């Protein structure tokens, strides 16, 4: 057992790209689900749109990176409008079914061979992050301290990613303490009461859907630029449910909930992953109990179990406030 590398992997995962991506996706979900009570099961679609927005913008249309980013943002706004118009007037579970269906439609279309020229089929796109990496101001070398030492590329990704997380957190904090944010929370608690006060509930819900979607789109930017590739199957339904686990773990309707949730989620996933993997390679865990590919499946079992147990025993998450979130269907 190499305790050193287990700790290193764990801590690096807690601040690494995966934690950043899921923190951003979950901040978006927090605006949808935590504050407004919208059951968006298609957050993966917004992330996909962001990631493919850059890839397709740069590679297919030959646009500069900055314009491609705007393309991704505009596409995510359009997606939110398209999803919202048919469903926001209906009951919560309709939005859930439509968003999950829309996310799968986008993934299936992105991986389709018929559109290989544009979106690269099931292999996805790669090699579009050149001008992003050229922006890296850090000279070659190692940055950080102790276990958290990264090379200049990884460090650049982390700095950019956490800056976006910080900006999103700040924005959500300011929005939610404004009168506008209080209307959103009121919609979550009792839609009809808000309507009777003369507020346009549909419009508020739509604004929340757009804002959460745009934050999800930022997650797609970080995801694709840090890997300099897009893979369609990374944006399946599992992505959305991981993001839900992150959100519920940290605490929905809390500004820092998604961030703390993402760090804990990836710390735990990485610790169990490396522990089990090392156990298997060093023959501490016999191969008839567990072998290589099964380690990855244990990760999903943990996520499923965590989602169930959290929702049953502690729906407010680690730092949440139970009064904030009654989680009841209308």
């Amino acid at each position, binding site marked *: 057992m190499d305790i050193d590398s287990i700790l290193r992997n764990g801590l690096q995962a807690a601040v690494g790209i995966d934690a950043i991506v899921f923190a951003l996706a979950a901040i978006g979900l927090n605006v949808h689900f935590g504050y407004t009570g919208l059951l968006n099961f298609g957050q993966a679609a917004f992330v996909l749109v962001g990631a493919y927005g850059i890839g397709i913008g740069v590679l297919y249309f030959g646009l500069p990176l900055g314009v491609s980013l705007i393309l991704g943002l505009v596409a995510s706004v359009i997606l939110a409008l398209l999803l919202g118009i048919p469903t926001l007037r209906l009951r919560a579970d309709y939005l859930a079914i439509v968003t999950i269906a829309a996310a799968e439609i986008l993934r299936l279309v992105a991986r389709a061979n018929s559109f290989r020229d544009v979106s690269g089929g099931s292999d996805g796109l790669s090699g579009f992050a050149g001008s992003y990496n050229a922006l890296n101001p850090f000279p070659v070398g190692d940055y950080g301290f102790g276990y958290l030492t990264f090379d200049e590329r990884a460090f650049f990704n982390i700095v950019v990613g956490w800056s976006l997380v910080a900006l999103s957190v700040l924005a959500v904090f300011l929005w939610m303490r404004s009168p506008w944010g209080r209307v959103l929370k009121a919609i979550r608690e009792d839609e009809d009461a808000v309507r009777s006060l003369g507020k346009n509930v549909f419009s508020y819900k739509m604004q929340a859907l757009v804002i959460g979607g745009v934050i999800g789109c930022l997650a797609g930017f970080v995801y694709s630029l840090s890997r300099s590739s897009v893979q369609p199957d990374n944006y399946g339904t599992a992505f959305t449910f991981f993001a839900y686990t992150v959100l519920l773990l940290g605490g929905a309707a809390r500004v820092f909930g998604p961030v703390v949730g993402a760090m804990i989620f990836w710390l735990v996933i990485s610790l169990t992953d490396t522990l089990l993997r090392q156990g298997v390679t060093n023959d501490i865990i016999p191969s008839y109990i567990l072998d290589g*590919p099964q380690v990855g499946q244990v990760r999903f079992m943990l996520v499923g179990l965590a989602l169930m147990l959290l929702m049953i025993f502690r729906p407010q998450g680690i730092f949440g406030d139970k009064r904030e979130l009654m989680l009841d*269907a209308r």
Partner: protein
Amino acid sequence: MAPPLKFLLLAVILASTIMPTASASAAAFGATAATGGEVLNVRLRSEDRTPVGGVTVTVTAPDGTEVGQTETDDEGVATFDIPEPGPYSVEVDLETIPEELAGLSLAQNPRDTRVDPGTPRNLNLLLATDPGAVRETASGWSTVPQLFVSGLRFGLLIALAALGLSMIFGTTGLTNFAHGEFITVGAVVTYVFNNIAELPFLAAAAIGIIATAAYGWVNDAALWKPLRRRGTGLIAMMIVSIGLGIFIRYVVAFFLGTETFQFREYAIQAGIDFGPFSLKPADIIGMVLAVVVLVLAALSLLYTRIGKATRAVADNPALAAASGIDVDRVIRVVWVTGAGMAGLSGVLLGITQGVSWNLGAQLLLLIFAAVTLGGLGTAFGAVTGALIVGILIDVSTAQIPVGGITLGVPTELKYVGALVVLIVILLFRPQGILGRRERVG
């Protein structure tokens, strides 16, 4: 707090006791490695889909280091132990392909691929004379009857699962995201008893369906009933069902492996020719069975005591309880029969498309589409919706030339059509075909 936890543990144990018999067999398939890393399976076949053995395949990491080099076996498969997930490049040494296949090539060589944690990456490579060429598919109006019939068959199989989902929604208000796992459990238990315990297929199928019904009972008794008692909100329960679905899915993957299996007595049957279309005997039996079960379910909903009680609970649970109906018992019956029918659907689907750990999960959204189309919470709506979705999926792939352009959905996108219809339906008639306005709320 204590009783639900106890029940939950019971559920977990019960759910996993079905599986141990399968774990012994998974090793026999030899596609998994005993090291700590991931697995990449490269399968090489020639144009007529026969496996090509004895060909050298090399896998290299992105930094150029060689991860492994091996020859494909008689099945055309070369298995690599990959140290960690990530992008890799697979190169086939075309010098080593058998002489009679000389001159054939691959669409991409070396081919870039990505190994993800948890699931072995299966890469299929096809040797062809002109790998870039698009294969001709049958087209025109003449293909429509065949597509209609295969869509009808698919629709009937979805209907078996959709009916249960819709009735569970109707009686409890829960949108059950773990419903696909009933299909998987039905198929997998049948596979275990058919292939490992070597029982005859019909006996194994009966055990599979009964086991799924029992699993439905456990679902309600151990999880949903305690949650209802506690007054857990519907949205919270929906998220619990997502967690349950993920958990069960990967428990199955853990013990069964991630390959697709065929039942022991599986054989490729010749279709019986009916003129404009042909059907395999197994498909005909499956369709007849599905129709019989659906009609029985419909008749019992309409005429039996428990069926009438079910409809009463779906209509208004409080009123039903006030009129002396045992609501909990009705809900229990709905879970058990709904699960059993989904299990039958799994067995029938397993015959045609093989048994795999995510058989049900792949179909879940189509089942949702069917139920929403027909009207959430209605029984006959779910069946109608399922038939429409099934037929639509297959018929939409007919390639029909109209004035120089070809209309039709590429086969790889056929599920997309059904999902788009789902969204459009919600735009114009959110209550579904047979639903009533007030359900939409």
